[in-house]
């Protein structure tokens, strides 16, 4: 079973994605900040990470992404940025740090997210 880590501080959104992907048969871990995310990553090998950019706590999404990409063990895990930020500068910055995709939450349906997940994980 493919495992997916969702880093999302908003309860309602986190729940919605989790439920949707679980319904598709994935094992989903949901963290609300950097600390929880790294704990989950230690505990579990992840196939895909959905990462929000604006997060509470000492590290935001960019920093988590940077850390992940500097972590030899984990830098190959595809990271999809799932944020409501969407300026070119923000997109460029995330892509430069090694994100595989950039999705603006408000502009996407959950079904599309499922499609994207399937394409990332190969079915």
């Amino acid at each position, binding site marked *: 079973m493919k495992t997916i880590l969702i880093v999302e501080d*908003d309860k*309602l*959104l986190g729940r*919605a994605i989790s*439920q*949707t992907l679980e319904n598709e048969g994935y094992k989903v871990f949901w963290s609300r900040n950097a600390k929880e995310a790294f704990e989950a990553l230690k505990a579990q090998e992840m196939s895909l990470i959905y990462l929000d950019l*604006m997060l509470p706590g000492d590290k935001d999404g960019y920093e988590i992404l940077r850390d992940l990409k500097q972590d030899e063990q984990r830098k190959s895990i595809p990271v999809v940025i799932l*944020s*409501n*930020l*969407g*300026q*070119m*500068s*923000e997109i460029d910055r995330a892509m430069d740090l090694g994100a595989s995709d950039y999705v*603006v*939450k*408000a*502009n996407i*349906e*959950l*079904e599309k997210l499922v499609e994207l997940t399937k394409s990332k994980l190969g079915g």
Partner: protein
Amino acid sequence: MSQGNVGTNRGEVVATKQQTGVATTEKMASAWMAAKKQVDLLQLLLTQGDSEYLVKDLLSSLSGMVGAVRARLYLISEDQRFVECVEEWCAGDAQSLKEEWRTVSVEELPWLMKKLWASEVLAVADLAALGPEAGKEAEVFKRQMLSQVVVVPLQMERRLGGFLQFDNVGSLGSLAQVGSDKVFFLAVDKLGEKLIQKKSVVKGGESGVYGSVVESIDEGIMAFTSGGKLTLVNQKFLGMFGRSRGDYEGKSLEELKEVFGQDTVNLMNRNLGMVRMGTSVVPFEIIQNVEGGKRFLEVGIVPLLDEERPLGELVLFRDVTERREVEEAVVQSEKRLKTVLGAVKEGITFSDEKGKFLIFNPEMEELTGYSMAEANGGGEFIDLIHPEAEDKQRILGALSKMHEGERHVGETTIKTKDGKVKHVLVSTTVIMRDGKQRFLSAYHDITERKRAKDELVARNKQLEEMTSKLHTTAEELKEARDHLEDKVEEKTKQLSEKMLEAEDLAKFSSEDPFPVIRIAHDGTILYANHASGALLREWKCKVGNKVPEGWLKEVVEVFTSNNRKIVEVELLGQTISFVIVPVKKNGYVNLYGRDVTHEKEVEQMKNQFISMVSHQLRTPLTSVRWYSGMLLQGKEPLTEKQKENASIIHETSVRLAELVTDLLSISRMESGRVQFAPVEGDLVGLIEGVVKELAPLAQQGQVEVEFMHDQLAPFEFDPKLLKEVTLNLLSNAIKYTPPQGKAWVKVKADTKKVVVEVGDTGMGIPEAAQKDVFKRFYRAQNVVDREIEGTGLGLAVARMMVEKWGGKIWFESAERKGSKFYFTIPLGVVEQVE
């Protein structure tokens, strides 16, 4: 004082008055007054029931006085229903009134009777001129073949007893020719005859019918016997001369010189003598000093005859003081006028309505070359001085339209007697006298002035031509100079380039607050101004040294490519932006620094703000979108209604999400970065979708929405942008249209473009707001007043989008009538914007 003088004066005045037409009216009045007296007498006789045979004589004498060919006496019947002609007098060949017309019903004379009851004397000069109110009378007069009619009411026992009708009065105007005095004395003459016939003259006194007749006359009367003794005076006479009857009766004129004065006595004796010799005398005037001042008295003398045998003379005195005073005043004022006119330099004329000059001053004679006599004599003066018919007509036209007191001032030309043409300024004032126009004109010779003016105009024209020529020359000079300047500029440029090489670096803008540095293409610093100090310290070098490696790279790049480059540097907490400008031919580059710290900060703040806003807005929006989506996709079955409602929530959230994106994209669009993704699509279907999407809004606002379109072949457009624009405009149309209004979308296409019209019958855009509606956050006052929600972004976004795809957007609107927005989508143009 001399009566002769007075008489002479009077003659003059009368002559003047005849010219002015005053006398005519006055004489008519006098004539009628005289006739009235006779009528009074007739009345008196009738009242006394005396002497029927007298009536015809009186009619005859009265006819003679007024120049009538017939005179008729009508009496009103007892029952007041008709009038009957009881006596008639006809001149020799005049026809007598037909028997059947002797009686006329009062009903046929309503207007006449009304006038007569009002004691008015009627004089009808022209039957055709009678008004409609006198229609019946006109019929009667016509039947009797009358042309000019005079009707005089007769009072008997203090009520209207009948009237006298004089027919075919030769000419009412001829009454004037008869002369008041003559008529008057004729009347008195007749009276005298009647007195003599009754043989009671010598008795005199106040007794008897004739005494009362004499007393009834308004003039002073004294009668002399053939023996030259005064036999009778009336009360009026005593009023004029004072004393009592006894002081006069039985005395000769000589004995009364204390009363009349020697001069008057002489004058009367002379005239009485002429009368006794059978010569009629014209009335003369005397001046009598009485209590209360000087009185002017008109004196007439007629013989008293019985069967051609002289009985004596009747002397009548009429007080004409008032009239004379008026005449004196006129004479005086005319004298004054003449004096005034003599002093002026202008030509002055005063003329009557026929153009006859009463005044033609010497200056006028000098101006025209004509004397007053020449001007008045033969031919019209206006023809003399205005040989051109047009001129004449223009002047006469202007004058004929003038009213009393009006002044007409105009410039004209006149021809003088010796054929010279003069320019004159003519000022004419109209003075009305007895309903007739008099013209007082002043002629001012402006020939010289005009000539000077014409000369001036000619000179001005010359001057203008010269100026124009000068101007042309100046233009040419300017062109030549411009050409020269171009050359000079070129030379200067060349020179300045040369000079630049030799330029003293000390002159370089050392005062500039921003860094200015010159670096040779090998990296050697050639010059650095004072503000460059910090950068040089950072570089750890000074003028003459080479710049650090990184900068050498930039310098070489700019120099080699010969293109400017902007490089930003953080320096002591400031952001300095350098423009590196190559100066290839001199082998160096110039660096111009500018502090952009603040701009950077602002841009950063703006970005942070947008990030914050998009996050804050989008997060709850995403919830709504996703959860409504889950509701629709979920396993739990929903009722149709629930499904519909969930759909609306979902779609609206999607639209909101897009709106937020568009809001954010405004700032992106400003920097030229916007996604434009045209694909081939179905515009009609897309707009139908928009109309459907807004159906709930329309329903809520009770606005009917209509969609009309041409048949369209598929073409390329950006569905997202187009939907956004249509949605924006149509939602505005619905939002700003009151209930029961209409909104519509019309799509038309030609070979080059598709035009979409979004219209409504709504509140419209106030004219003052029309120039601003496309501005961001602008909202017109009329929608703000009605508290209609909106951000003021819709039209701004719409315009940006339309312009992004190369279309145009505009509108027509009238407040309270509605608006029509139009936008175009060019066909066959796929504009890819980065």
